[in-house]
């Protein structure tokens, strides 16, 4: 990805925005710290000055001006570098003691505090500022006590330096972090977008990679992949169906056509023409049956949760379907038995579900040998309400059980029995519409087809792999 693109990336702009907000708040915070430090240092200097002045004032009230002058001189000697400064003047303005050469020119503020520059250090060449306070003594003398702000200034500067560097470093890290984060995110979005484009260009098998981080991107990628699986399945289904329709309907259509063709060729009498017409009609009807079955399957597969479901007693359906097929089973010498439990209820389209059950019972009776046994049952299982159609016929080999659900698939040994290979496809479509699980199992011997309607209260529960 080019850098120019990166700066356009939403994530990067977002990162920059956050960084801006962060910097403004950092500057505000640092300003506050700096100001507070300054106020605190001034306050500390003032405390020092006031404490010193307090001591001197006590001495003055005990021993008068002379004693005070002595002490001031003593203190001034102790402060050759002039960290603390003193100046005592008598009423006439003559300096009595101290380490200042003259009374500062600067005007004191309302509380008597005054700031003025002095030279400091061993040779008094370091320029510094002093914060001092002037006291008027009762006999007209004046005392000035001050403390250098030099150290305080150094502390302040150190703090300000730290703050500025800290801010610079934060900004730098923020920019780098934002760049890396957005580069990472943009790279993943780009990868997804690339996958989508590949699919758009026709490669339906392309899927998004998972990082295994289980983050939102992985979730998105997983949902996308599941969506693509479903789309691919549907597209594949449509393709197979189209191919199969072309193949499976062309044969009877062709037969239909040649029958009419041949009938038109010969000089046939009305009776034989009528016979041809009747056979043609029967063939057209069977084509329509196949077509209708295909249509029902695709309509059922398109069905959504919007489909009209009503509360249905599956036991009723089981008893009805058994009753409907019982004469047919008897004719074939197959015993048809219905087993139900009372009080079952499912949300279903009763006509479609009945069609599915009828298809299953039809197969079961058709493939059961004489003397065979077909059981249709409805009952409650730990997974939900189960509808089962079981027979004692030849069954379906395990490797074919998935395949037979597809449209037009007929196993070789079924070729001799009538059928269009759509019965189980419809059952599967109906199962999907009802979100029921469809399983084909070995009935030892025979086939047991089971539809399990998961309970409504579990329907909304998220499925975890």
């Amino acid at each position, binding site marked *: 990805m080019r850098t120019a693109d990166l700066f356009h990336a939403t994530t990067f702009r977002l990162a920059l925005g956050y960084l801006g907000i962060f910097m403004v708040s950092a500057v505000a915070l640092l300003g506050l710290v700096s100001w507070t430090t300054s106020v605190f240092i001034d306050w500390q200097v003032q405390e020092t000055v006031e404490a010193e002045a307090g001591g001197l004032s006590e001495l003055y009230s005990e021993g008068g001006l002379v004693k005070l002058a002595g002490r001031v001189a003593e203190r001034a000697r102790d402060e050759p570098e002039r960290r603390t400064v003193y100046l005592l003047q008598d009423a006439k303005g003559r300096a009595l003691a101290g380490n200042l050469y003259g009374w500062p020119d600067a005007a004191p503020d309302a509380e008597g505090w005054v700031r003025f520059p002095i030279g400091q250090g061993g040779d008094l060449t370091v320029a510094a500022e002093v914060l001092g306070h002037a006291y008027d003594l009762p006999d007209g003398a004046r005392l000035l006590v001050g403390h250098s702000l030099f150290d305080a200034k150094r502390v302040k500067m150190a703090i300000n330096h730290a703050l500025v560097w800290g801010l610079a470093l934060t900004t730098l890290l923020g920019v780098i972090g934002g760049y890396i984060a957005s580069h990472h995110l943009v790279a993943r979005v780009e990868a997804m977008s690339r996958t989508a484009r590949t699919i758009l260009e026709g490669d339906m098998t392309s899927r998004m990679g998972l990082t295994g981080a289980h983050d939102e991107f992985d979730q998105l990628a997983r949902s996308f992949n599941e969506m693509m699986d479903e789309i691919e399945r549907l597209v594949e289904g449509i393709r197979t169906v189209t191919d199969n329709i072309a193949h499976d309907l062309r044969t009877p259509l062709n037969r239909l056509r040649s029958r009419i063709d041949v009938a038109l060729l010969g000089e046939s009498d009305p009776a034989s023409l009528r016979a041809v017409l*009747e056979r043609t*009609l029967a063939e057209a*009807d069977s084509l*329509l*049956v196949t077509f*209708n*079955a295909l*249509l*029902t399957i695709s*309509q059922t597969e398109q069905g959504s949760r919007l*489909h*009209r479901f009503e509360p249905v007693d599956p036991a009723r359906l089981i008893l*009805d379907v058994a*009753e*409907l*097929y019982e*004469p*047919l089973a008897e*004719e074939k010498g197959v015993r048809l038995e219905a087993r139900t439990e009372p009080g079952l209820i499912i949300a279903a*389209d*009763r*006509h*479609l579900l*009945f*069609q599915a059950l*009828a*298809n299953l019972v*039809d197969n079961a009776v*058709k493939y059961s040998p004489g003397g065979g046994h077909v059981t249709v049952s409805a009952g409650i299982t730990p997974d939900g309400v189960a509808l089962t159609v079981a027979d004692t016929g030849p069954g379906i080999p395990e490797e074919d059980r998935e395949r037979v659900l597809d449209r037009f698939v007929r196993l070789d040994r079924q070729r001799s029995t009538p*059928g269009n290979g759509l*019965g189980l496809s419809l059952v599967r479509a109906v199962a999907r519409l009802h979100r029921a699980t469809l399983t084909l199992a070995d009935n030892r011997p025979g086939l047991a087809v089971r539809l399990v309607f998961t309970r409504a209260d579990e329907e909304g529960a998220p499925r975890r792999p």
Partner: protein
Amino acid sequence: MASLGKPPAAGSWRAGVFLDTLAFELSTGTGMRILLIEDDTEASAYMAKGLREAGHTVDVADDGTDGQFLALTERYDVLVIDRMLPGVDGLSIITRLRAEGHATPVLILSALGKVDDRVRGLKAGGDDYLVKPYAFAELQARIEALGRRVASNQPETRFKVEDLEMDLLARTVTRAGKTIDLQPREFRLLDYLMRHAGQVVTRTMLLENVWEYHFDPQTNLIDVHISRLRQKIDRDFDPPLIQTVRGAGYSLRAHR
């Protein structure tokens, strides 16, 4: 029925209405006056031809506007209305008819075959619903069943066809005075056949009305049920009453 023979005055119908009234009174007395509202003119021509051959009088309208006008102004025994029509759509015509108090039975024709579509059609006031494509025999049988329904509007409790009698209150069936024992479903099957005695009922009609499921059986299930019923009411008696009508279904009547 005399008014049926009167040809319409020229110019009294709007353009597009194709009117065809039989110029003679039907001698059989079973003929009905049918309005066919269908925009597929080829299909409606076939339907009209078949129905006329069966002895009915047929008016055809090829769009919803003309169809609605005819349905509201003329008297018919049965209306056959396509669901999707240019002008006024089929369901709107039915709603309008019912709102204006017309009780004429309506058969809806539709290419929409889902249960939802059927329910919507019947809710709008349709009496029966036939999904395209259909066999002509199916259409004819349903039209005749609808026409008959109005004729016998009050609930009947006894039916009699030849020497076969059914008492709905006592739930008994006798033939030539002998009681015949029927399973509940066989009873309902015979009940339906007797209500439509003399008419053709199709296998689909039986599935829908006796079993009350809309579905396509893959096997001729109904035939097996009918043959069971025959065993009970026809085997030991004469004449046989349940007739198979080729290409259509069954009919309960003395064989002629």
